């Protein structure tokens, strides 16, 4: 028993020792005051600490409209009808299960619905416009009596390589096509952008980072010669009609949490909002056009406000294993390899109405800017100012808990990476140098880097 006691005490002692040489103990607090210490299946679905009274109720109401299914109109539940006519999912939570990340479907019969395809074509003037018959997104489900637009087919090609130490690796490169197209061939000139549903928490904090802090990092012409450009996507805030910095979505094409939510309601569930246009029914889809509406709009201001509040106030899970040797060594490697050039660790939020979001020092590991990620990841479909090979740096906080919450380890914009190691290997373009340096690492160092990522 004495030996056991000693071991226990030594462990505690080590932790104390390491925290004196590194930044303060609140390295676990990735979301500042909006952090929760929950590391189980519920890690992504917690409210920020300190919600009381009306705010607590608003969170509950938003949670409900995030989770519950929308139903076909007309229905007795007038506040919840208007699904589709075509749609990808019946609720936010069908894709963001427990507010987490989705994975791509295994095959045509897999009910998993967290992957969608954005569609575009080039018009006569060379501008990127929605597909004239299928719109700007493939809706692969529909209400009774309305044709489904089509289905997603995914084929894979194996890509292999090896680390400097000779250890082989293998990646699966997906390619996408549309089958069972209901309104005639979609055409070879269609531009397809696959997108997986990301985890939701922390967006209230990302929204609070002052726009100037983000654009200050932009270096569109790589004036500093570090191989990393970083461009801001500019868009319009549909609430104000003003130009605004894009922060959300895989291409930073959305300015605010509210705009992102409203866009997903319309595009993914077929629910019209006070901020969006009419249903996704291109003229050729006559049954879609003729289907009953659930109201105008189908989700009203109050409910959209509550869902927005809910997503803004989902807490960030605390880091684990901070201070452990591997983890801390991985953190140093992360900076040394240049990963932190885009996955910028720190940010500070501005004033906010919710105390837990108000002026917080956070570690989201993102610069919220667009970067050219190379041919391997390119979708070839421009989105706003984002080119077909640019993607927004996604935040990394919480990625180590994806498996616990969502039951899988699929990463990147379409879930192609089967674990964090593959995710690193998929990086190219501006991240090519960092990837090459990663390949040159020893197995121990590679493991340390992954241990660090797993602690986020």
């Amino acid at each position, binding site marked *: 028993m004495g030996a056991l006691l000693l071991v226990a005490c030594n462990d505690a002692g080590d932790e104390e020792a390491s925290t004196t040489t590194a930044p303060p103990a609140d390295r*676990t607090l990735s979301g500042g005051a909006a952090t929760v210490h929950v590391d189980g299946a519920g890690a992504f679905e917690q409210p920020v600490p300190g919600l009381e009274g009306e705010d607590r*109720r608003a969170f509950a109401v938003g949670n409900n409209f995030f989770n519950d299914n929308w139903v076909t109109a007309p229905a007795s539940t007038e506040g919840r009808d208007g699904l589709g006519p075509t749609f990808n999912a019946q609720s936010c939570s069908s894709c963001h299960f427990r507010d987490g990340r989705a994975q791509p479907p295994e095959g045509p019969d897999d009910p998993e619905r967290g992957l969608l395809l954005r569609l575009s074509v080039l018009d006569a003037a060379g501008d990127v416009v929605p597909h004239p018959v299928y719109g700007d997104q493939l809706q692969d489900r529909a209400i009774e009596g309305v044709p489904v637009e089509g289905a997603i087919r995914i084929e894979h090609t194996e890509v292999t390589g090896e680390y400097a130490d000779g250890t082989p690796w293998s990646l699966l490169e997906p390619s996408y096509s549309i089958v069972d197209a209901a309104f005639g061939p979609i055409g070879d000139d269609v531009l397809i952008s696959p997108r997986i549903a990301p985890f939701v928490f922390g967006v209230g904090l990302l929204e609070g980072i002052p726009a100037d802090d983000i654009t200050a990092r932009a270096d569109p012409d790589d004036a500093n010669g570090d191989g990393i450009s970083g461009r801001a996507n500019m868009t319009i805030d549909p609430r104000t009609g003003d130009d605004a910095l894009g922060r959300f979505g895989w291409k930073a094409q959305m300015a605010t949490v509210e705009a992102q939510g409203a866009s997903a309601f319309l595009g993914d569930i077929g629910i019209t909002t006070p901020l969006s246009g009419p249903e996704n029914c291109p003229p050729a889809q006559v049954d879609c056009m003729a289907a009953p509406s659930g109201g105008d709009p189908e989700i009203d201001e109050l409910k959209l406000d509550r869902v927005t509040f809910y997503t803004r106030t989902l807490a960030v899970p605390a880091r684990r294993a901070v201070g452990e040797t591997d983890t801390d060594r991985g953190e140093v490697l992360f900076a040394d390899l240049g990963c932190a050039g885009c996955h910028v660790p720190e940010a500070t939020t501005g004033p906010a109405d919710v105390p837990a979001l108000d002026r917080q020092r956070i570690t989201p590991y993102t610069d919220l800017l667009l970067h050219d990620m190379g041919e391997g990841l390119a979708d070839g479909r421009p989105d706003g100012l984002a080119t077909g090979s640019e993607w927004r740096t996604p935040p990394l906080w919480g990625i180590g808990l994806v498996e616990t919450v969502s039951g899988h380890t699929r990463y990147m914009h379409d879930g192609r990476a089967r674990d964090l190691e593959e995710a690193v290997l998929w990086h190219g373009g501006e991240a090519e140098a960092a990837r090459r340096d990663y390949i040159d690492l020893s197995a121990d160092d590679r493991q340390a880097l992954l241990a660090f990522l797993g602690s986020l």
Partner: protein
Amino acid sequence: MTAQRRPRRLLGGALIVALLLGVAAGCGDDGGDADDASDTTEASEEMSADVDPALEEAVATTYADLVFDSYDDAVSGAVDMQTAIDTFVAAPTDESLDAARQAWLDARDLYGPTEAFRFYDGPIDNPDDGPEGQINAWPMDEAYVDYVVDDPEAGIINDVEGYPEITADVLVSANEEGGETNISTGWHAIEFLLWGQDQSEDGPGDRPVTDYTDSPTAERRATYLQELTTLLISDLESVRDEWDPESGAYREDFLSDPHEAISKMMRGIGALSSGELAGERIAVAWETKDQEDEHSCFSDNTDADVRNNAAGIELVYLAGGAEDSLSALVASVSPELDQQIRDQLDETTAIIETYDAPFDQMILGDDEAPGRVALIDTVESLQAQGDLIALAATELGHEISLAI
């Protein structure tokens, strides 16, 4: 939520207890401050060291028995309902329809308390194959099932070409075709086929009996109703059987780790109290004032749903008066906290007893209207109850989340 890390269970049980005592006594200066992240693991385990493992096991066993009995009652209620529905279908009259509706209401009273056994990925609602979505899905996709106002041809029942035969298998696969497996089956689908849409300002739905006699799809509607009932019973039985004292696979697993079992029990009632009942079922309708934004909107039975859920929470906490109750376990570490929880349960019950109108009437009016006051009081009492349950869980060495 308090900042508690899940205790790590890497070593054998007895060894852990000894080791934890050592940490607490030898190195601990943590003082049990739940907000201090760096110390929470030791803090929570220090407290759990006071919990009597034999009592935990007895409490978990009592609970498992109670869960089985409750689901068995729910099955019996559903079987009685089936008898009434079969009688109705064989000879549809206003009287036999009323009898079927009454049997649904009675069966709901038996199912309602079992919702306290959700929210920990047990047999009822584990994300892989738990049938909760098929049993109790809400909101019900009416127009996917049958005609609705403004759309007389809607639904599977009227889609003879698309669904030439109506069987339980067809219903299940039709659901999957549309998305989740939860849009057209379960209690509320049966409710819809018995009552119909609630178009009245102050009463329940009033589906005419002629839907089952004179309608061109009368027979298909009757078949759908019977198949739904059969499916509901088999789903309820499958959950009950997992808890069977003789052969229940989940029960065996559940009782193999009584400490973890306690955590699940508390998560179940905490999440039902604060998240599901206070939040989803009351606060949402209170805020939106959507008259049919209530669980049993066709039958106007939502106030009973609230009462039955609250009764389920109390049933779990007090174990129906049994000696080895969660209450006794909480009292073993903090008699004061146990008393606080009992008081809060009483307060919730007392508030619910004041309800004097259908739920869809109570939500209307300004915030001083008696119904709205009673409902917001219920929300606050249920949230306080959830917070106290989470606090008690912490005292017993668990981290539970109230989120749903």
